[in-house]
């Protein structure tokens, strides 16, 4: 026998009981094409106008923070791939820097340059996916095909660099899994050369597209004050007119050496968020070209970090001392001092923060992941109210969230 299903706190019944008015509560998601994963929105509708929205998250909760407390720092790197799984390289970099801050370890210039390079490639890859999916959400199928063609080329580069297309696990505490392959920087340069005209072609499909403008301009407006009060970060914050970019304001990884602009919106609507992402890709190409122009030589891992980073493979196979060192590193993890640090990196989706609390040794006592998608989604109950049901689709597409990161 079916029991009646009621939504708590929706107010739908009270509204329906009032004379002359009738409201309807619908569940959008958890498997709805425009919720990009498993987000569920409980929407209360008056006709086609949304009067209340309650996002239900947690369908993809895996307990990453609990898992982190039960393994060594290096063992957690693959789990960071699965946070924002559209930009795993950027997550790898953010996590490695956070733990290195705890160890007070500086990585050499070549390692920093490679990290900037992969973080920016990940940004392009993530924005391409976000743009393509946004296009589909508002009925522009072609954009998706264009962006996925370009993203595929990036994935070829990622595969060559890391051995994996998707779950890259490329960084280690104190360095990287390996140096870049021969000729790889050149191929990144070639990608950039052919990517820029393709990007302009792709953006031209949307930027002055009448249907796209009708679906996005003036829709889902987030004011500057709201964006700050709800802790929005990344392109979603900048589209609301706040020129905050941690790469500029809190430079890490040597970002201060590179010249780039931070695009800022004026209205904070879905269209501004689209424009910001488009411009960020151009700026990423600019950064990548500067990195490639002065690509530093030398070590790609911190050579002095004896109890943190594994010694070179040939040394492990030939020298007793290095073999013991590697064995200790694998079994007990990189040995870090006690203390606590909080590090945020400017990821494609926003500021990805790691709060690491260590009691010393190879395992974190507590690892809190501050995920940008989680914070960006928390504004939904505010912006959905008063919007038309069809506008929610534009809004979700323009916020560009990833549930793997939101739910952790």
């Amino acid at each position, binding site marked *: 026998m*079916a*029991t009646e299903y009621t939504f*708590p*706190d929706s107010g739908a019944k009270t509204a329906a009981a009032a004379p002359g008015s009738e409201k309807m509560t619908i569940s959008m998601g958890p498997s709805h094409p425009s919720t990009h994963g498993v987000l569920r929105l409980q929407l209360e509708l008056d006709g086609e106008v949304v009067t209340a929205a309650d996002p239900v*998250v*947690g369908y993809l*909760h895996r*307990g990453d*923070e*609990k*898992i982190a407390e*039960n*393994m*060594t720092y290096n*063992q957690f790197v693959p789990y960071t791939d699965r946070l924002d799984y559209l930009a795993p390289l950027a997550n790898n970099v953010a996590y490695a820097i956070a733990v290195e*801050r*705890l160890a*007070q370890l500086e990585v050499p210039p070549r390692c920093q340059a490679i990290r900037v390079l992969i973080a920016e490639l990940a940004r392009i890859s993530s924005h391409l996916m976000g743009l393509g999916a946004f296009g589909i959400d508002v009925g522009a199928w072609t954009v998706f095909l264009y962006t996925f063609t370009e993203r595929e080329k990036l994935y070829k580069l990622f595969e060559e660099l890391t051995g994996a297309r998707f779950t890259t696990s490329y960084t280690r505490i104190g360095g990287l899994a390996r140096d870049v392959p021969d000729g790889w920087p050149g191929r990144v340069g070639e990608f950039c050369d052919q990517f820029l005209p393709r990007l302009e072609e792709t953006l031209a499909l949307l930027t002055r597209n009448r249907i796209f403008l009708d679906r996005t301009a003036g829709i889902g407006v987030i004011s500057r004050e709201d964006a*700050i*009060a*709800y*802790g929005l970060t990344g392109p979603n914050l900048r589209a609301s007119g*706040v020129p*905050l970019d941690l790469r500029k*304001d*809190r430079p890490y990884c040597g970002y201060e050496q590179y010249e780039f602009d931070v695009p800022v919106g004026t209205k904070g609507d879905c269209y501004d968020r689209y424009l910001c992402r488009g411009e960020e890709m151009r700026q990423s190409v600019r950064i990548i070209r500067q990195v490639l122009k002065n690509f530093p030589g030398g070590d790609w891992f911190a050579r002095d970090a004896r109890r943190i980073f594994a010694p070179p493979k040939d040394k492990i196979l030939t020298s007793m001392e290095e073999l013991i060192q590697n064995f200790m590193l694998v*079994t*007990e993890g990189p040995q870090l001092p006690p*203390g*606590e*640090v*909080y*590090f*945020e990196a400017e990821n494609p989706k926003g*500021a990805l*923060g790691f*709060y690491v*609390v260590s009691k010393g040794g190879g*395992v974190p*006592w*507590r690892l*809190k992941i*501050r995920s940008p998608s*989680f*914070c960006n*989604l*928390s504004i939904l109950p*505010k912006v959905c109210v008063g919007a038309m049901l069809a506008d929610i689709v534009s809004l979700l597409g323009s916020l560009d969230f990833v549930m793997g990161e939101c*739910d*952790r």
Partner: protein
Amino acid sequence: MTATPVAALIQERFPQVAGRPSGDWPAFNVPADQVLAVLRTLRDEAGFDVLTDITAIDAGLGHSPRFTAVWHLFSTTGHTYVRLAAACADAARPAVPSATGLWPAANWHEREAYDMFGIAFAGHPDLRRILMWDGYPYFPLRKDFPLAGLETVLPDAEVAAETAAKVQAAPLMGGPFVAPPGTTMDEAEPRAGDQSWTEREEKPR
């Protein structure tokens, strides 16, 4: 700790607030009843206008104080962070005041900290679980909650009655930090468990 402007401001206004050991940003241990006042001062007078994160630390069973709530603030003008920590006096019913009146961003962060640690944020308008389902009986990030999980009833009572199924603890084994002491390799490593011969049974000839 170096005397940063924020430290000077805090010391002047709140003499009971002590510095907290930190590897990077200025950090302070705040008495729980002064948290809101300190947060408001930092927001209105020191320019820390963004609430970046609220979380908690569990020091483990038997430690006092057991639970510590942690706030991270960011300044969009000064581009620095500050960390506040407040110990919960009662380990059985941990509670700190809610910052939802200062930042709406606190809403979801506090729900998450409640969901994971069971810390009650007094004054929160809607303190429900956010990542786990409503009615889940445990607080998973507490140190006494096992990594593999605990058996619980299904969230849907109707399905549970029909199928008699339960949420099972996951066999999360493998690695030196996960395997219980005294286990053999075929118990600790899931892959080893699949093989037809183990440390106990000889390889068939």
